[in-house]
């Protein structure tokens, strides 16, 4: 950004200009032939979509593919985007749908292969220590935290793609049951049941460890 000399007046003008640069205008401009306006939408929502993609796929490589594919598909379908809708929500759903297809495909591929290492399902994170932000002074607590993150990763990987999607959308992103149901192409009642099964499986996988190590926290988020 550049600094303007008439600071007070230009600030108000620039704020107004920034407000005008809403999603709807950016979409209109792209549809009018200005491809570079799409950059605004990519820059505004790519981090948000990445968070979802990483939680759904469990690894950086697949998450990256989901983010790029979601924005490409959104661009291709932009004529169908309704101006009143929220572009972020729309691209989020496209990403969730693509991630489900990707996970389904990955499950098929995995089922054909012999499982080599039960702790390395889905090509998940190889090095939990990569997420250490503040390991803290206690080596025992550090070790438990590494173990907890690894168990969480494993437990999430053991969910079906529908369970994982339902849990991520409901628990982490606070989506409504109807919205999750539409992504899963299911009904509300079945979706509620899917969320329940996901939490139940995660509980079975993590509760014994948490009860044995009540101070453990997943690495990378210790405050």
């Amino acid at each position: 950004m550049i600094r303007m000399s008439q600071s007070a007046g230009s600030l108000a003008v620039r704020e107004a200009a920034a407000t005008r640069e809403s999603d709807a205008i950016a979409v209109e401009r792209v549809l009018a032939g200005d491809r570079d306006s799409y950059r605004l939408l990519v820059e505004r929502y790519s981090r948000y979509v990445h968070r979802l993609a990483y939680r759904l796929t469990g690894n950086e490589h697949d998450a990256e593919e989901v983010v790029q594919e979601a924005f490409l598909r959104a661009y291709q379908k932009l004529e169908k985007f309704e101006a009143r809708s929220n572009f972020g929500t729309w691209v989020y759903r496209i990403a969730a749908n693509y991630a489900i297809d990707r996970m389904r495909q990955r499950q098929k591929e995995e089922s054909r292969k012999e499982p080599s290492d039960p702790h390395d399902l889905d090509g998940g994170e190889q090095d939990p220590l990569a997420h250490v932000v503040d390991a803290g002074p206690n080596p025992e607590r550090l070790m438990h935290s590494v173990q907890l993150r690894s168990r969480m990763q494993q437990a999430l990987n053991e969910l079906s793609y529908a369970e994982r999607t339902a849990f991520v959308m409901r628990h982490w992103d606070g989506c409504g049951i109807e919205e999750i149901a539409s992504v899963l192409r299911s009904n509300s009642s079945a979706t509620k049941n899917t969320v329940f099964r996901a939490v139940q499986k995660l509980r079975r996988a993590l509760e014994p460890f948490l009860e044995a190590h009540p101070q453990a926290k997943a690495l990378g988020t210790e405050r």
Partner: protein
Amino acid sequence: MKHFTEEELISFREGDVQQEQRIFAHVAECAACRAELNRIDAVLKALDEFSVPDPGSDYELSVWRQIAPRLPQKRVRWRHSWFEPRRLSAFGALAATLLAAFFLGRWVRPHSPAAPDPLNAQQVRERVLVVAAGDHLDRSEMFLVELEHAQPAAPGQKVINISAEQQRAEDLLQENRLYRQTAASEGDAGLASVLDELERVLVDIAHSPGEISPAQLQSIQKRIESRGILFKVRVIGKQLEQRPQRQEDAPKAAPQSNPVVRERNKA
């Protein structure tokens, strides 16, 4: 006492409000269900701590760089280009001013029976153009002054994002086209000529890359300076400000012989 099932407690913990009141009341009384809910809560709280790795500070830019070459150019549909919101609003503003001119002309006519009608209508139209174009020129002048004095936010900055300035240039450009066409159709060649020059400068800015180097910014500033557009905008703006006064001084002059228009056309 009937206890709640695991499914009911998980649904409650995950935001299902159907049985919220009943579950609240029950867990306050029932130690077994309270303990069960606490265990579910502990697992979900632990999962809350499961972080997503930070993809990096320039992640947004890297996504754009990855996908930009794969985006096909959209085929422009006429309805999208003509019904674009900002274009519609600019047309709306122009239509409103023309309507106002029409009704003002009709309202003025009975109060001045001696004045020739075509002259009044012409004067009113021109006054509307003067007011609207004057406002546009003021905003354009402010924008050009800001851009001429703009500098990188930090001394060593290598890339400057001018996307906000491009947006403003684009907005001004849309309005400028309409005023230029109106001025030309009103026979105001002087105003139309300055607006034409202003349009070229605005096109230049609007079509620059979103991110430029300090040297490119200086180049844009030099181009603005060398064309002398800021001076021309100021001069024509001043003339427009004085114009209503002069028109009142010479109300009966024919439109073709309007001294201000004639003077500006000469310039």
